[in-house]
């Protein structure tokens, strides 16, 4: 069964059509990278998949259960109430600029939502939080505050925070774009480690070599449509003019 199914979604802001009839799916353990020029709708796509935005058309489902489906009046119907809450715990999102809660310690950033939202026992969550911190190489930072950490450390905390919710799939929106090259390496290492553990992930990135190495599938988006969806090997050998032009910019660097 697919973890995520997106079918024919469209999204406009006023009269600007940002996503046009987008469909794709992600199976368990699969790693999908999304690349494309700035403004092509990559962030909007992740935001629609995580209910930060609501689509105008189309259906989205996680593990076969609809998050939104088309109602009789041609408008999408979203899950509500308890179902919505349950749906939100199926995925996590890692932001470009971390968005940690600055007034919470690192430990509280990780523990608060599992305890207060998912109502899991604090002791169990604490144990998991320390395991995650260890995995992120941040054992000694549990009591630190976000402002005392480097960007790379903050991003690792935000990944731990997302993982503490035990999501079935993790989305990354340019997780390294706000970071210096050496801090970027830290984050890529963590994502590789998650890949080795068969975490299902969808990664929007400009790190082409990384995407090529880690993904099972790559999606090239441009102007709100999926231009190509294929294996990394095929994508980098593509005959498509738009793909070639886009990837060419990176080859020059």
């Amino acid at each position: 069964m697919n973890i995520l199914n997106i079918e024919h979604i469209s999204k406009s802001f006023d009269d600007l059509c940002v996503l046009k009839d987008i469909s794709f799916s992600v199976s368990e353990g699969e790693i999908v990278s999304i690349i494309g020029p700035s403004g092509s709708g990559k962030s909007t796509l992740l935001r629609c998949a995580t209910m930060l935005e609501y689509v105008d058309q189309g259906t989205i489902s996680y593990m076969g259960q609809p998050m939104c489906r088309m109602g009789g009046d041609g408008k999408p119907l979203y899950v509500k109430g308890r179902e919505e809450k349950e749906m939100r715990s199926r995925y996590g999102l890692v932001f470009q600029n971390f968005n940690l809660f600055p007034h919470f310690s690192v430990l509280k950033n990780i523990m608060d939502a599992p305890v207060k939202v998912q109502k899991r026992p604090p002791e169990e969550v604490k144990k998991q939080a320390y395991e995650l911190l260890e995995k992120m190489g941040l054992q000694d930072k549990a009591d630190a505050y976000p402002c005392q950490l480097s960007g790379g450390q903050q991003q690792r905390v935000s990944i731990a925070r997302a993982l503490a919710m035990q999501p079935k799939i993790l989305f990354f929106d340019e997780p390294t774009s706000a970071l210096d090259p050496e801090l970027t390496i830290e984050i890529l290492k963590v994502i590789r480690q998650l890949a080795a553990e068969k975490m299902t992930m969808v990664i929007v990135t400009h790190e082409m070599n990384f995407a090529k190495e880690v993904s099972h599938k790559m999606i090239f988006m441009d102007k709100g449509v999926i231009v190509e969806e294929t294996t990394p090997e095929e994508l980098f050998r593509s005959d498509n003019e738009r793909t070639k032009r886009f990837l060419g910019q990176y080859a020059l660097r």
Partner: protein
Amino acid sequence: MSFLTMLQVMGNGMLKSIGIFLWTLLLSLPLGLVIAVIRQKKLPVVTQIIKIYISLMRGTPLMLQLLVVFFGPFYLFKIRLSDGYRFIAVLIAFVLNYAAYFAEIYRSGIESMPIGQYEAATVLGYSKTQTFLKIILPQVIKRIFPALTNEVITLVKDTSLAFSIAYVEMFTVAKQIAAKETTMLPFVIAGVFYYVFNFLVAFISERIEKKMDYYR
């Protein structure tokens, strides 16, 4: 008249000033927050009413507002209120006035919060109420604390306005004593009282600000 007697005579006014101060804060800080939150919901009519209310409160002197609240019931509706109404009138005027200022401060603080904080909370499944109370409000309070402190210091001095409806007689008494005994001492006593009061407020506010210093 001895210094101690003067203090005793004026002491009543000081206690009343402190009472006005505490009650006003206790009521107007939450009321201001409620107004700011309702305003955020952007309900057309309600927002307009709140806007008019805030601009009236900020655009007219508090002394005038006090007089209107105190004399209004009589002149407008011929209602005679008991003497205890003086304190109620003071509270109504002060709380309405200060809630308006506080609402504006809360609003600026809420609007200054980065959208990413809401988004992170939403993705983690926090409800709207949880997001506001746990994530947004604590950060807003830290951001607006200096502005709140300014307002609170103004409030200390504004409590003296209650003399305009003869609730606090400290100044009347001070004037009488000064005239009878040809001394400035009553004025000095009143001055020292307000100065020390404000000093305490500033001191406490600094302590609280330090307490919130652990994050940026």
